[in-house]
Every structure is written in C-alpha cells, then in structure tokens.
C-alpha cells in the first residue's frame, strides 16, 4: 500500500502550544480522517503541510519526494478546502476563480463550470452572498478543477446541514473512486464512520495513533454491564468508563479478557467517536 503523503517529525512551536514530532503516512487512493478535539493541532498541521507556516523541524514527502524541493509542483497537485473559506466577499465567484486559476498549471475551466452548474452556483454572485454550505461547495469546485491528486480539507462539514453534508460525502467518495486521495480533518467523526478508510488521531500536538478504520472497529468494543462487576482489575481493562447507579458503559481494547470476567455483558462495536474519546482522556493522564 503506497503512501501519497508522508509526514515525519513535524515540529512547530506556536506560543503556548507546540506540534511535537507529528508523523503519519496517508495511504494512496483512500480517504483519511484527521481527528482530534478543537485545539489539538489539526489546523496547524495542515497549515504546515500547505506552506502557510514553516516547520521548525520535520520532513514532508509527496509520492516519495520532499516537497521543499519542488513546492510549486506539489501545490499544483493539491486541492484545498478551508473551513473559513478565506475568500474575499466583495469578489464574485468568477473573479475569485480568475486569480486562483492563474496559479495552477492544469486548470480545467470546463470542469469548473460543470461543477458550478451542478452545485447551483451563479458565477456572477458575490461570494459574500453565499451561505456557508454554498461557500464550501464553491471551495470544492475550485479544489477539484485543476486535476489535483490530493484533496486537503480542514473542517469542511462544520456548520452544514445534513443534506449538504451527505452531498459532500458522496462527492468525496466519487473523487477517490477516480484514483485520488482525500485528507480531511474534522471533529465531527460521525461523517468519518461512513466514508473514512484510514484515521490519524492527534491530541495536544502529538499523533496518538494512525490506523485503518476497520481495524480500529475490530479491536475495540463498547461493553455494558452491572456496576457490581467493576472490580479494580476489570476497571483497568477499560479505556473509558461511564458509570451510573444502574450500570456502566465502557470502551475496551481487550474484549476477550473483559468477557471472561463479566457475565451477561452486552458487547457492541464502537463508533469512531467512541474510540477517539478513549484515547484522548488517556493522553491527559
């Protein structure tokens, strides 16, 4: 499984916060979810990837090649979608497109027009008149119109209604089906339950793990049982534990061990969010 993007030892000090030795590899042709709570370092990592900030240390390789050596070629193959949009509201969609398209060597105008039409956007509208969902679609139209191999998205679904979210997810699935890759950072993990292939968890500036989504779902379980069964030994087998007077619910990576100690335990597969919560609490200890 080859990697489209490899990050190694990325370090950056930003006031009180620091990215510390962030390393991960994005598998090619996959949708990788970059998860973590707000403030964990997702946006900072993406800014480093895209050259908005210079790292204090670390390497970034795209298809095996160091991006510092050929930064413009690298950026030509990347499509970017920001949470904020970072567009000028006074400009129209076409005016903004003019300045953006000029930067890319493989701009595909007909593809852009097709996408605008598909999203129901008018080129002569001012960007300031767009709703959040429409702005995001516009950003996607820009990002997918220059034959980019990798789409990098920073919190694309926050603030969007479910209908638009579903459209976006379908778009991403179609995009990877064409042979491309997606790197999407989000704290809304329910979207990733549906479409992610691979996940990278970051917390407090450090990568906690990177793993195939299904492997995570296979190795962890949500187990529910009675309060009296929570001996200290059993307790230690859980990553998270939610207790009430009626019983407990917890996440564990040691299903077999737990099941041997409990009778009539109810066992379920976790969601991505459940797993994420299991590893964030820990790194704080």
């Amino acid at each position, binding site marked *: 499984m080859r990697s489209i993007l490899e990050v190694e030892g990325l370090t950056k000090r*930003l006031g009180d916060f620091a990215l510390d030795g962030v390393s991960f590899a994005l598998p090619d042709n996959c949708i990788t979810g970059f998860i973590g709570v707000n403030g964990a370092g997702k946006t900072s990592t993406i*800014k480093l990837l*895209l*050259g*908005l*900030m*210079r790292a204090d240390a670390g390497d970034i390789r795209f298809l095996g090649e160091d991006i510092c050596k050929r*930064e*413009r070629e690298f*950026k*030509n193959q*990347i499509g*970017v979608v*920001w949470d*904020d*949009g*970072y*567009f*000028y*509201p*006074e*400009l129209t969609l076409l*005016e*903004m497109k*003019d*300045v*953006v398209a*000029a*930067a*890319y*060597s493989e701009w595909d105008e007909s593809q852009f027009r097709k996408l605008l039409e598909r999203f129901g956007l008018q080129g002569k509208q001012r960007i300031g008149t767009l709703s959040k969902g429409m702005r995001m679609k516009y950003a996607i139209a820009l990002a997918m119109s220059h034959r980019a191999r990798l789409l990098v998205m920073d919190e694309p679904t926050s603030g969007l209604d479910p209908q638009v979210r579903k459209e976006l997810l379908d778009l991403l699935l179609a995009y990877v089906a064409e042979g491309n890759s997606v790197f999407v950072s989000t704290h809304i993990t329910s979207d990733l339950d549906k479409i992610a292939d691979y996940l990278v968890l970051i917390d407090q500036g450090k990568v906690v793990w990177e793993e195939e989504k299904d492997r995570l779902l296979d190795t962890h379980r949500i187990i529910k049982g009675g309060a009296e069964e929570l001996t200290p030994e059993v307790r230690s087998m859980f990553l998270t534990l939610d207790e009430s007077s009626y019983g407990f619910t917890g996440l564990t990576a040691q299903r077999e061990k737990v099941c041997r100690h409990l009778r009539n335990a109810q066992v379920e597969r976790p969601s991505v969010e459940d797993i994420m919560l299991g590893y964030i609490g820990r790194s704080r200890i």
Partner: protein
Amino acid sequence: MIYHLILKDLRLGKRYWALLPIAAVAIPFFIVSKAAAATSVAFALSSLFIVYLFFNSVSMAEEKHRGAAYLCATPYTRKTLVLGKYALILLLIGSSYILYTLAALIAPERLPVLGIQELGFSLLLLAAVFGLFLPIQYRLGYEKSRLVFFFFIFLMPFLLPYAVGELDGSSLSNSMAGLAPVMQGVLAVAAAVILLLGSMAVSVRIYARQNL
C-alpha cells in the same frame, strides 16, 4: 500571474475607482489654486494621497478576509504575491501620472506638465514613502502599521524641517545642484527604482517567514 493578482486588487478596491480620477485631477488643481508656488509638489502630494487611499482599502480587505492565506496554499509563491503588491503601487502611480498629465494638457495655464526633474523627485518621494511603508506593513500587519503611519504623520511637521535643514547645506545637495535638471531627474528616478527594489527584497524576506 502578476496580472491576475493586480486585477484582483483592482477589483477589491472597486469602490474607489470613480473617486480616484476625480481626485487625481481635483487635488492638483486645488493645491495650485491655493499656493501657486506649490506646483512642483502638486503631483507628488496628490499621487501620495490617491495611491495610499487605494492601497489602504485593498490592504484592509486583505487583512479582514485573509484571502492571502488561501492564495499561499496555491502555487503562488510568497515572492510573487509581494511582487503583485509592488506592481499595483507602480500601476497606481502610473495611472495617477497619466491623469495628471491629461489634466495639465487640458488646462496648461493652471497646471504645469511635469518635467523630468519634477517627475523624478516626485517619484523619489513616493518611492521613499511606500518603500518604507510596505515592509513595515508586512512585518506588523495592517492594523499596527496604520498606527505607525499615523504616528509618523504626526511627527512629520517636526521631522521635515529638520531633514530639509540637514539636506540643504550638505555635500549631496551641493553636488546635485551642479547638475542639469534632466540629470537630476534621471538620478532621482534611478534612486527611486533602487529604493523600491531594495524595499521589495526586504518585504519578500519578511513575508517568506510569516506564519499565516
């Protein structure tokens, strides 16, 4: 690419398009009517005013919406983005000059057409102001650099006489006075160009390091 960056900035400053040609003509007339002796500075001051106003509104839009952050993620290099801004300034100065000259040709008895010497020194003044101002704005950002600029304007009445006084008896002005006006003008233009190039190099270095 630079063409598109300039186009983008012109579109951002759309609001001032109508105002500027009017200002480019009205201000010199105004200055000349109030102080006949000030004809030589009429162009310099009016361009300063126009270019600053327009450039300021573009910078404000940039700072507020951080569109530059998006552009930095594209293949545009930091250097190209800086070049775009300097090219915009030159374009504005150039337009201002054209408008002034048109006005001067229409009403030659009111406004003198600029000779090389006057043009040269005007350019030098503009280059000095913007050559100093742009790197500061890159370093401090739009908000803080405006404070610096106003502070500077505040100090001007005190600094200017001092600077002129120093310049007056200096060896530089003496050797300059000996030259023909045309030579003076050419040297002034050359100095302006060098100033702007130097300023651009500094700005590029500042901007290349910036975290967006």
